[in-house]
């Protein structure tokens, strides 16, 4: 069960940040964007109630996730230490600050439900909400990465909290905008409210982004001592991906801003109604993935602490160098024979068979994906009807991975299916990834063959692809051998980013009209092709 505890422990950080964003971002949205006390705004009670409810859901679920974090930590420590961690755990900052934060989040949630929900047109009650949120925000400072640092602790805690609040304003507002769009598309609000709120949010969004960068920069400068450490460590790698994702989210935000600007200049509402909502949906995909990546980043050792374990930029580039894919696998017996030496702590002997086994798995998966992406490209030519069956490749890939991912477990190895799944976090992750790939193939095939024009099934593919990307971005190999593990991680992280692009592209292909539809579809398939190429040339360092 330790594997499940590990899994959930790493998951909960991103979930926590998402709900935090809903709560904190919702309050800022109410005060600076909605401004419900404005009599000229013509908000209905139902509309305001919905917005406040979303904020309440954020605060309430934050209580649950914060308590769940503590419970998971207890579970994980009990499994790792093989003893009950109390009373020692009760004296930790994590336990005390965690409980205090949950308590303040509960106070906020109760206030929103019992007071703000009934007085949402009065300024004073929103301001009280902000005051009540402050202790919850401040107590979170003791739960961040910087809290354990030996130098500049207070400054790092302060900047991280500002960074979190700024991100929460952006993410929380994006969720509020999605809620507004949903009500608008159901005809529950005034037509004009949608562009008006988009317009009002624009400056708030700009301030949030400036604040994110301004607070993130000093943290990054503290944790990096050279450009190479930005390229050659897991911490730097994830930060670069975060910056790239920020760029993608800003691209969507910029498109929205331009569309709203055009609307107020020319009264042409096409883009505002038929493009902006879907850009915001894609932006939400990116921002949520960004939050999970941020949570994953917090569990990496800062680059400045591991100069002796930092890879050179040449070593990083070499991991992506084209080479002939391995299409011959070592035997199962040869692999198992080398396992004892490979996992030994004292007298460790690197296993060439294990490296070859892993290379084969990755390279063959690359062949699957590259061929599938080529078929996917061909499927845009209507005459090539057979090409539309390309998602079958995912089903075959899932079967391949089921047999090859973990050679020491069932069905090829001696360790049973359930025993390996629930006692080893890495095996659990591989099993999940295998299931994901298999499901992707089945669902996408069914979606492409359905005759129902209103079917929602096609949307599952981009959603699952986004989750797959999310999983890859948190698939950190950093453990006992950080440099070697990082060289494995760097390819996986890049694939995670491409999986997110694949998801956003496909989502927009399904939602947009021409020519955006075709452009997004091509970008999506190209991202799949890139993932295939990375896997095709993958080579694991010998360790």
């Amino acid at each position, binding site marked *: 069960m330790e594997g499940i505890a*590990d899994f959930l422990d*790493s*998951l909960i950080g*991103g*979930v926590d940040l998402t709900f935090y964003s809903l709560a904190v971002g919702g309050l800022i949205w109410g005060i600076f964007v909605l401004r419900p006390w404005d009599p000229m705004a013509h908000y209905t009670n139902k509309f305001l109630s919905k917005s406040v409810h979303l904020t309440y859901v954020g605060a309430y679920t934050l209580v649950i996730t914060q308590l769940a*974090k503590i419970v998971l*930590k207890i579970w994980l*420590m009990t499994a*790792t*230490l093989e003893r009950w*961690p109390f009373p*020692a*755990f009760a*004296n*930790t*900052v*994590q336990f005390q600050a965690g409980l205090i934060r949950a308590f303040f989040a509960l106070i906020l949630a109760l206030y929103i439900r019992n007071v703000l929900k009934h007085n949402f047109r009065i300024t004073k009650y929103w301001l009280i909400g902000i005051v009540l949120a402050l202790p919850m925000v401040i107590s979170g400072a003791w739960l*961040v*990465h910087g809290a*354990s*640092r*030996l130098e500049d602790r207070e400054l790092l805690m302060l900047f991280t909290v500002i960074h979190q609040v700024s991100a929460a304003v952006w993410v929380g507002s994006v969720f509020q905008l999605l809620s507004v769009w949903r009500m608008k598309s159901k005809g529950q609000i005034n037509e004009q409210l949608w562009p008006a709120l988009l317009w009002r949010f624009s400056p708030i969004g700009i301030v949030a982004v400036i604040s994110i960068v301004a607070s993130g920069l000093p943290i990054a400068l503290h944790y990096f001592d050279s450009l190479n450490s930005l390229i050659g460590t897991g911490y730097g790698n994830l930060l670069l991906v975060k910056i790239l994702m920020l760029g993608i989210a800003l691209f969507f935000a910029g498109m929205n801003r331009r569309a709203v600007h055009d609307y107020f200049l020319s009264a042409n509402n096409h883009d505002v109604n038929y493009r902006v909502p879907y850009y915001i949906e894609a932006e939400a995909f990116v921002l949520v993935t960004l939050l*999970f990546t941020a949570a*994953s980043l*917090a*569990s*990496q*050792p800062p680059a400045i*602490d*591991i100069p002796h374990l930092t890879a050179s930029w040449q070593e990083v580039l070499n991991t992506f160098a084209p080479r002939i894919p391995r299409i011959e696998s070592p035997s199962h017996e040869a692999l198992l024979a080398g396992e004892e030496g490979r996992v*030994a*702590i*004292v*007298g460790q002997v690197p296993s060439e068979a294990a490296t070859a086994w892993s290379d084969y798995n990755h390279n063959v998966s690359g062949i699957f994906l590259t061929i599938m992406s080529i078929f996917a490209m061909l499927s845009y030519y209507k005459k090539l009807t057979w090409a539309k069956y390309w998602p079958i490749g995912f089903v075959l890939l899932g079967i391949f991975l089921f047999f090859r991912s973990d050679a020491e477990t069932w069905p090829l190895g001696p360790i049973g299916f359930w025993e390996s799944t629930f006692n080893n*976090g*890495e095996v*659990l*992750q591989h099993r*999940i990834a295998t*299931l*994901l790939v298999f499901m992707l193939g089945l669902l996408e095939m069914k979606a492409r063959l359905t005759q129902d024009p*209103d*079917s*929602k*099934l096609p*949307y*599952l593919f981009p*959603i*699952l692809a986004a*989750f*797959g990307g*999310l*999983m890859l*971005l948190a*698939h*950190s190999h*950093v*453990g*006992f051998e*950080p440099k070697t593990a990082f060289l494995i991680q760097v390819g996986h992280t890049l694939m995670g980013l491409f999986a997110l692009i694949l998801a956003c592209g496909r989502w927009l292909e399904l939602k947009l009209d021409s020519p955006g539809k075709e452009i997004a579809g091509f970008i999506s398939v190209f991202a799949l092709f890139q993932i295939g190429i990375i896997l095709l040339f993958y080579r694991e360092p010998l360790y």
Partner: protein
Amino acid sequence: MLNQLSRHFKLTALLALILLPYSQLHAHAVVTDTSLNVEKIAPNKATKVRLTFNSQVELGLSQIFLVSAGDKMQLLNAEPGGHQGNVIIDIPPLTPGEYALKLSIFAADGHLSEDIVRFFVAEGK
């Protein structure tokens, strides 16, 4: 159609719960320095080794094992050093050979980290 969407949403939410990320026990609290770098351990003599971490550690929730040939583990006594991030561990008398310290460290920011410090014990010249 709403029912269909709701069904899909539930399926997606279920899958999301299962598929969200897993990452191994990470190295956040890492050893940045150790007295082993400057003082070699003499054979057959009990000694103390200092480990310096990049962050504050909760020693009551951490474990340090001595690993000897055949990956035999022995739990070691560990105490706080004079400075924050320093930990002093008691090493029993060791015969010449290869050894390692296997660390399970609970950092003050709540991350449970694992690390390995390898070292040799050799006869003095």
